[in-house]
């Protein structure tokens, strides 16, 4: 499987991966998160786990199970870790979190592994299963730079028992962490159906299938239906653009089982746009990878107007397809977009509208920025670099070189 990546990263890079992995041969690794489908974490694991096995590092992926009540709480926790907004965590929620953790404690085998990666807060409490000799690593995909103190205290109960933690970027690291802390950027997979090359005909057919006009300029945001992704702000920016430009907007997303808020936001958007013939709010099944691919390739300008963002890999996905992205100057978006070179970083709805208009008006800008955007992703945000970072991290942690 790894050989398939040679066209993207070169033979020498793949050769080096095998050399590094020799130091880890026979290692048993487990990844635990809370969903097989939907969201960036699951997407990365779908490919990362087989690639690690390809390197003869025995790697499994298990899903921590919860119900709607549990995920409603962890979504609230997620939001509180992003932004301190005054909501409180109550004792009933904590007890329920611990109850579900205990149920998973009984079901999930974590003992037979040398290294356990726990992704995000949902399965974090499983650390109580840690055995002597094991290394447990918490992989945080959230911007926790300014968390709600109560939410952070809740996490801290578990965090400092881990051997190390990983954040996407330094700005996401809360200052009070006591354990070794690394930064590893997430990645996209060029071989994923969402990112492979598509024939022009398929792109056109997909857009037509969903009622869009393939000839009309398309502004696109792909994201979960989540207030933090600010789809309402995108809609306002679109209306500002629409005054002068005949274009269409697609807000493309899907519901994830661990995000109960998604359906509510989706319905609000549908109600708000019922009279807008050029606005398409599309809730696609979670495995609509080729459709999303077609939308990104068919877009004229891609937008990611999040208010807060874990990393926003959807930005890299669009950049990989040679699209300039207008993104908010927050979180991981500002690590992906080089302002004025691969797209634009904006701070407001008005700023987004101005940049969208500039790109709609100028094909040369779009093509030039699109070229640089693809190059940037090729060298910084592909999965092979991500895999290599994990290998080095595991080797360092096993050898206690801190």
């Amino acid at each position, binding site marked *: 499987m790894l050989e398939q990546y040679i066209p993207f990263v070169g033979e020498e890079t793949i050769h*080096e991966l095998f*050399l590094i992995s020799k130091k880890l041969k026979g290692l048993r690794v487990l990844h635990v998160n809370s969903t097989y489908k939907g969201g960036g974490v699951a997407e990365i694991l779908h490919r990362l786990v087989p690639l690690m096995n390809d390197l003869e590092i025995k790697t499994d992926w298990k899903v921590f199970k919860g119900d709607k009540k549990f995920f409603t709480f962890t979504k609230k926790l997620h939001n509180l870790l992003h932004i301190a907004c005054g909501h409180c965590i109550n004792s009933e929620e904590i007890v329920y979190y611990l109850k579900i953790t205990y149920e998973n404690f009984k079901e999930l085998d974590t003992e037979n592994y040398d290294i356990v990666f726990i992704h995000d807060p949902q399965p974090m409490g499983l650390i109580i299963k840690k055995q002597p000799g094991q290394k447990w690593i918490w992989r945080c995909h959230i911007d926790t730079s300014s968390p709600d103190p109560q939410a952070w205290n809740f996490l801290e109960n578990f965090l400092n028992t881990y051997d190390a933690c990983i954040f996407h970027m*330094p700005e996401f690291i809360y200052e009070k962490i006591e354990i070794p802390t690394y*930064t590893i950027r997430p990645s996209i997979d060029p071989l994923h159906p969402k990112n492979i090359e598509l024939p022009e005909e398929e792109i056109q057919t997909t857009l037509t299938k969903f009622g869009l006009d393939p000839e009309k300029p398309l502004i696109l945001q792909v994201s979960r239906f989540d207030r933090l992704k600010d789809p309402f702000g995108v809609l306002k920016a679109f209306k500002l653009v629409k005054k002068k430009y005949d274009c269409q907007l697609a807000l493309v997303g899907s519901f994830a089982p661990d995000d109960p808020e998604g359906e509510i936001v989706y319905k609000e958007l549908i109600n708000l746009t019922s009279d807008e013939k050029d606005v398409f709010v599309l809730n696609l099944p979670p495995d609509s990878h080729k459709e999303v691919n077609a939308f990104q390739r068919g877009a004229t300008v891609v937008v990611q107007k999040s208010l807060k963002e874990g990393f926003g890999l959807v930005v890299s996905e669009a950049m990989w397809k040679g699209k300039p992205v207008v993104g908010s100057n927050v979180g991981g978006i500002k690590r992906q977009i080089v302002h004025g070179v691969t797209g634009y970083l904006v701070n407001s709805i008005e700023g987004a509208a101005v940049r969208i208009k500039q790109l709609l008006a100028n094909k040369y800008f779009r093509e030039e920025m699109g070229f*640089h955007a693809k190059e940037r992703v090729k060298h910084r945000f592909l999965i092979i670099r991500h895999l290599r970072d994990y290998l080095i991290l595991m*080797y360092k942690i096993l050898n206690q070189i801190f």
Partner: protein
Amino acid sequence: MSNSFIFKSEFWIPKYTGVKVCSIKEFIENLKVIDKFSIFYHMYINIFNYHNLPTFYTNSISYWFYKNGRVLLAEKISIIDPLDYYDLEELRRVLVQTLEENYDETWNGREVNPFYFIKAEREIIECGYFANTLEEFIEGIKKSSINSLFYHLVTSRIENKTLINDYSAWLVNIGEAKKAEKIDKLDLYTMTLYEIKKKIINILEGE
């Protein structure tokens, strides 16, 4: 065989030192004591990352000054070529001296963007091939990744405590002093490592 050139490669994983500063004064104070591989990280990260895009400055320290509107300091630091120093402590001394000479006490406020001192946790591996002749050396370079180039052009100088990179050092030993000199003069900050690789191959194959 004692004169064989052994090809190696280097990988980094960024580790947070726990030091975040919000003013230039704090930055200088911490720069004086921070782990030297944090200086290594911040001064070399732009080379280690493939920098195909017009980057603002040559290192992340300058970029931080620039982002906070301290363009003078950004320029003063960006002209410092870390390849002029094999000793990271000497590089630290020059950085601190430059900052102290150009720092204005009236700036002693909080900057908008904080600076996070990151340290490079490094792992060096042997690539599994070596060279005894110029032909084998050229083949080895062709097979090398940009990580391998980085090790031989940058880190080897720090490890061997010499200003000459070890491609050039080995070439001098086999009587190829002119090629060695040309390689040693390549400016790593103005080209990507892919371009550097092509240049090196051209030099070795006689241009």
